[in-house]
């Protein structure tokens, strides 16, 4: 919460000082050391689930990362005692759950990777979600920095009881809208102490699905995806978000976000970076007309 507040003050003050400026610069960054990493998020949705095993590239490198294809990857539903072996095809590891799904709300999952003779594991709990009340759209004229266009609003209430963690992503015409940042919410606000349990999501989320610098146009299809995540995943994502938007007067020292994938052997030499997350998903779509 405080971070958001502070960021807000900083943005307005810097804006108001009208002397500040940002500039994209050329920076000679050191070379990456090919850190292997996995991108493993399992949902409660039917169909194909995908896990990627890649190697890190130089930060500025625009090329797609190198794929690691010689690993054995299995996801286990610890609660139900079921295993889902993933197979490598088309540059990723896949499992087709058909009309059912791997993910079940309330279950605990384990990711197991065997690679170069070493064993890696991570676990996560699949948490519940809420339901989206509505997506609305409204035409607005230019207002200060906000450009003229269609503004979509997201109306959601937090699920009552327990602290719920949400990851909100916005898609425009089928692809992730990078003009809208990743949004993370606890109980519909930024407060994970139960202060806003069951409340409507607060304005930064309500208005946050539309970027002021590029509002929607007639015909755009806007999809909002809400993922219910565990507290651990929420904290991981919070740190990722901090690293992705480390701007302003009150930016923080860059640090490596800790991951949950661990080498099972204490003497293991190989390191794989990765976060294994299990999520429940809900979404709503609005065609701007």
């Amino acid at each position, binding site marked *: 919460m*405080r971070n958001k507040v502070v960021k807000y003050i900083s943005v307005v*003050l810097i804006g108001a000082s009208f002397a500040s*400026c940002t500039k994209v610069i050329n920076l000679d960054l050191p070379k990456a050391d090919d850190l292997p990493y996995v991108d493993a998020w399992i949902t409660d949705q039917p169909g194909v689930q995908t896990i990627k095993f890649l190697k890190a590239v130089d*930060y500025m490198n625009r090329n797609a*990362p190198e794929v690691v294809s010689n690993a054995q990857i299995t996801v286990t539903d610890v609660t139900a005692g079921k295993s889902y072996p993933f197979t490598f095809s088309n540059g990723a590891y896949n499992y087709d759950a058909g009309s059912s799904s791997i993910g079940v709300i309330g279950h605990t999952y384990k990711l197991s990777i065997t690679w170069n003779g070493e064993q890696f594991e991570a676990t996560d709990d699949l948490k519940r979600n809420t339901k989206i009340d509505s997506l609305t759209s409204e035409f607005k004229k230019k207002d200060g920095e906000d450009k003229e266009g269609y503004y979509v609003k997201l109306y959601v209430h937090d699920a009552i009881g327990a602290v719920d963690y949400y990851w909100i992503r916005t898609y425009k015409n089928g692809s992730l809208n990078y003009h809208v940042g*990743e949004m993370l919410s606890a109980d519909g606000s930024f407060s994970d102490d139960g202060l806003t349990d069951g409340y409507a999501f607060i304005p930064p989320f309500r208005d946050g699905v539309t970027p002021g610098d590029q509002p929607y146009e007639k015909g755009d299809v806007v999809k909002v995806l809400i993922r219910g995540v565990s507290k651990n995943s929420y904290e991981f994502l919070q740190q990722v978000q901090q690293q992705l938007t480390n701007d302003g*007067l009150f*930016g923080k*020292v860059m640090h*490596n976000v800790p991951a949950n994938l661990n080498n099972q052997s204490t003497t293991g030499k190989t390191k794989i970076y990765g976060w294994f997350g299990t999520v429940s998903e809900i979404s709503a779509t609005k065609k701007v007309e």
Partner: protein
Amino acid sequence: MIRQLMRFSVISFLQMLLIMGGLQAQTGKFTVNGYIKDESSGEVLINATITIQPSGIAVMTNSYGYYSVTLPAGKYTMLVTYSGFKASQKEIELKGNTTVDVSMATAGKDMQEVVITGEKKLRRTNTVGMGIQQLSASTIKKIPAFMGEPDVVKALLTLPGVTTVGEGSAGFNVRGGNVDENLIIMDEAPVYNSSHLLGFFSVFNPDAVKNVTMYKSAFPAEYGGRTSSVLDIRMKEGNNQKYNVNGGIGNVFSRLSVEGPLQKDRSSFVVAARRSYIDVLAKPFLKESDRNSTMYFYDLTAKVNYELNEKNTIYLSGYFGRDVFGFGNQVKFKWGNTTGTFRWNHLFNRKLFLNTSVYYSKYDYSLKFKSDDDVQQGYDWTSDIQTYGIKPSLTWYASNKHTIKTGVNLIYYDFFPGKGVASSEGNKNEILLKRRYGAETAAFLEDTWKMNSKWQLQAGVRLNRYAYLGNTSVFYFRDTTANVRKPLDHVDNVTSKSPVKEWYFFEPRISLRYELQKNTFLKAGYTRATQYIHLLTNSASPTPVDLYFPSTNNIKPSLTDQYSVGFVTQLNKWPLEVSVETFYKKMQDLLDYIDNANLDLNQLVEADLLTGEGKSYGVEVEVKKETGKWQGWINYTLSRSLRRTAGISNNDWYLSRYDRTHVLNTCVMYTLNDKWSFSSNFTLGSGTPSTFPDSRLDIQGMGIPYNSTNKRNDFRLPAYHRLDVSATMQGRQGKKMKQEWVFGIYNLYAHQNAYSIYFQTNKDEPEKKEAVRLSIIGSLIPSVTWNFKF
């Protein structure tokens, strides 16, 4: 041991009061004492020098303008000198104890000449300790200022060893220490947030400031509770001769102060106020819906004093300041300091001076949010820290060889970490964090000993007790891997305010000065200081909503030992002071944070804190000229500031964010004639250390920056440099009204200094990653200020 010593010293302080009160002059010797004042305003002069010829004894006035010197009977010439004033000479024939109060006249037009012969203010050559720097209100006003507004903290930044992490950042760093390690006191009351508008201006109104003294090492024993520096700000008493109105109108804010006698020669007051109007200027840049935004600060400083009789004077001073940010009806943030000080000066006899200060200080903030649409939502958040203190301190001018200062200091802290209230569609929830309490007790004793014509020693000791008090929930955590949140073990609800945990510290403060030859001195010193309150902040610059938090059963007090050695000389050929100071600082139990520390309304915040160690060392070289048409200084600092915390940067030493290897400051002031004067300020320094990524991890479409070396602050931002200039024109000088215009340009060659470099994904081409340089001041900033006085 220390505990018994403490008790003993508090009791002996009281005894000393009684004993010394009864002491009489040594046989055949008499005491000359009195106050040194400014003739035109009646303001006492701090650190004015009184030289007695033919004996050659020199003494200085204390913070209340008082001096006392004991001599054998005889005839003497007394020379009183103070920067910017005509030297005053008096013949005295000492047959008995004598009071000589001196009112000094300002130097006026023949200033140049008089100043050259007469000036002897608090200089490195006439203090025993090292790392002491003094700025008078007039010097502060001469340095080119941001937006044309003279500023105490910005002026300090031109001194060696004082830096910030960038423009607009709050506070300042001294010799590689954190912002919260500076004891900032205004008339003895601590000030928790020294910044307005986040960090662009400081909270001290230069029109109400009389004197600013900074101690970077060699803290006098009377100061404690912070480890990096002491910034002692004394407010004006107010003119007790005639009414004066001072004011100024500038780009950013306006100032007005009124001072005058309540009873001529005995009592006076000063009231000074400022109000900014940056919000008015910003209006065209805001959204239509935010046009009714507010963004301003104001402060009010007031002081009265009353001389009850020759032996008793009382002072009452206060400060109230606020920053207010509001956006439409939806958002309102407020924060600010409130301080109040009551002081009583009492002369037991000519040799025994007592000052007792009682003070209160509060820093608080509140945040309010309200949704402006159909969903009725709101969020309110408040937090504060309050401090109550009392500090009786006694100066005994025992003999010409010994001046002894002793006293006690009791401080009580009341921390209110926060209360949050959220409402939505008619529902309301509240979260209340437990208050925390702390108590600091200290006793100090210091002797300034003129051993012989060559050697002087200032030896002091401060005994401290700090107690973390109950009447709160005390949390106990289990130890775990470094840099990971500690799991809660259990909670004790302590109902009484008895100490939950207490510490005792013994702090020696020693300075030694040796006169190598006339006006050339070698100095050495050692200072230990401890700290019990900490500003919880893990961002680049502290924010107004950061919390102060006490040392608790989970957070050890931090402790710093500083050693320094130096050399200072007053050149004979040129009116220059040249000094070289080296320092080495060892810091223990510095606060650090786990990577994902949650510092927001977090009852278990202690689980996210780490402690580490630090060290800093360096050399500061300064050449200063304070007389003549050309004045100014040039200083260069070469230093290092390092930290080591388990779990961070591979457990190795890393550069702290306050490390600036090289810093060069030059400040030049030139008086052309009665009408025009000019000044310029140039600063050049190494960029702040920073951490950059080398790799990218594409996870869920997010290109996460990753640093495979895991080393913190392994890179630096580009070097920082900036030139500011200003010109002051004295306007038409009427009989009653005086006026001046100050024209300034900040950042003359419009250099875009990097405040930070951050990394982002290009919004239109997500596969493209960018490094972005943020400059807080990206262009030159001209300013015009009109000052008046009548």
